[in-house]
């Protein structure tokens, strides 16, 4: 049975769900770093399914919500990517304490891939980083969120001019802090270069290439519709199967 709990400092607590291993030796802890904003809601169910699959294969799994998102404390407009980097580090520490495992794998989804890779520097326990459709450039990612916002705004035909101006400052329906905007713009694929050789694996739902040639890259075709205003849940089973392989394969 999963265990749901809050951890972290008072008033800034992070919500997490821990999936204990249902078999095997339980040596590995996988910490799932969910994607941001609209993609967080759309992948919640898929990442839960992934966690269950990994637990069935003998892994400890920790899922969590960054501060200002999901059930965690705080408001999105008050947090930055630095806070979220810290959240990953705290989640790894919490997961290690709860599981007793010292072998940590990280899964980064979309823009969280950039954060997951930066967390490798901060935790020497991370022995594998698997990325699902990693965002390669923060600036383009932010622009795609803006494009989604425009689609949402265009659907609202009753907005006054002043309201329309206001909503243009949101990203896919979310209000970000100025710091978050700036940090996202500054993110680029160089974050992936900082990961030591052999740790990184990539699973893509499209034929998009990954800029670092030596990184093992698997393609599991599935139309995730990341850059659209779609609100449907993404249950990318072919991708999830590949992710399970990448996270459980011993080599």
């Amino acid at each position, binding site marked *: 049975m*999963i265990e*749901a709990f*809050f951890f972290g400092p*008072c008033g800034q607590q992070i*919500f997490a*769900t821990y999936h204990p291993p249902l078999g095997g030796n339980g040596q590995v802890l996988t910490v799932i770093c969910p994607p941001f904003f609209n993609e967080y*809601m759309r992948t919640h169910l898929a990442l839960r399914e992934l966690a269950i699959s990994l637990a069935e294969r003998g892994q400890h799994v920790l899922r969590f919500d960054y501060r200002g998102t999901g*059930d965690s*404390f705080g408001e999105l407009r008050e947090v930055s990517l630095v806070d979220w980097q810290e959240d990953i580090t705290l989640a790894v520490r919490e997961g290690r304490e709860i599981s007793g495992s010292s072998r940590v794998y990280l899964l980064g989804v979309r823009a969280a891939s950039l954060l997951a890779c930066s967390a490798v520097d901060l935790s020497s326990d991370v022995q594998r980083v698997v990325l699902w459709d990693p965002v390669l450039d923060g600036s383009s990612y932010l622009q795609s969120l803006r494009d989604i916002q425009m689609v949402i705004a265009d659907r609202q035909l*009753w907005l006054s001019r002043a309201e329309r101006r206001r909503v243009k400052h949101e990203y896919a329906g979310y209000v970000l802090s100025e710091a978050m905007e700036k940090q996202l713009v500054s993110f680029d694929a160089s974050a992936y270069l900082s990961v030591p050789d052999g740790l990184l694996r990539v699973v893509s739902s499209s034929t998009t290439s990954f800029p670092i040639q030596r990184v093992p890259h698997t393609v599991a075709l599935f139309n995730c519709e990341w850059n659209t205003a779609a609100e449907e849940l993404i249950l990318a089973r072919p991708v999830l199967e590949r992710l399970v392989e990448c996270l459980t394969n011993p080599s």
Partner: protein
Amino acid sequence: MPDEPLVEESLQFGDGGRLLGILTLPNLRPPNAQELPMFVFLNAGLLHRVGPHRLYVRLARNLARMGLASLRVDLAGTGDSPPRLGLTNEQSVAADFEEILSVLATYGGSRAIVLAGLCSGADNAIRLTLNERRVVGLVLLDPVCSPDDGFHTRSLVYSYTNPARYIGWLKRRLKGQATQPLGGDEKIDPLTIRDVPSHEELQSAFERIGDRGGRVLSVFTQYALRYYNQAGQLGRVLKIKGYHRFCTELFWPEADHTYPLELHRHRLVKQVKTWADVYHST
């Protein structure tokens, strides 16, 4: 960022701890806490307990700042709660509700309950009201409604006189996306993909709330335009004596079903707070 006025606790309850919910409590218990109802947020479709654009989290925390406790829960088959096999949706939701009442009793005794939900959350809230006397309040976001006498005429007039529609068509045309004929927007009837309560169930739910001395807040957005297009339509089709005494009915055609814009979320939160504030004055 610290959020001292409230505390949150994750609850795993029901048979084998299968249901997961987050209990939000005011940090300082108001002296009349036992007299105040507890809010229960029911999943919007397949979305987990945080609600679309985190709407339920925001509502729950704002209510807690007013001294009102709430539980946002994943019903079986949504979010982190596994499905109950072999049951219909209605049976499964009813079984979940038994367990919700049971766990809430440990926190609030037999306190009154306000059920809140968007879309299918509203549908479930309406059905659950029928058999549970403790339900004395409903917050229904885009609930079901039958057409009244003037609905079709209004719909027709609206289709051809709404300038916003022409503006939208023109915009699509300018962008080279004029694949839809004018006036031929989305084809899917939203209610066909929902397991909506019948008119009789809806009417009974409202009557029972009225009999229990309770209150209802209903908000209809542009999503509901295929079945609701004028403020007051719900009251007219329900024909319940004293409807306006205990029901607040709002028509917000400018807002979208899942409240993707902050200004609409803000407006909704403010509205729910105003509606809930009455619990302090009664």
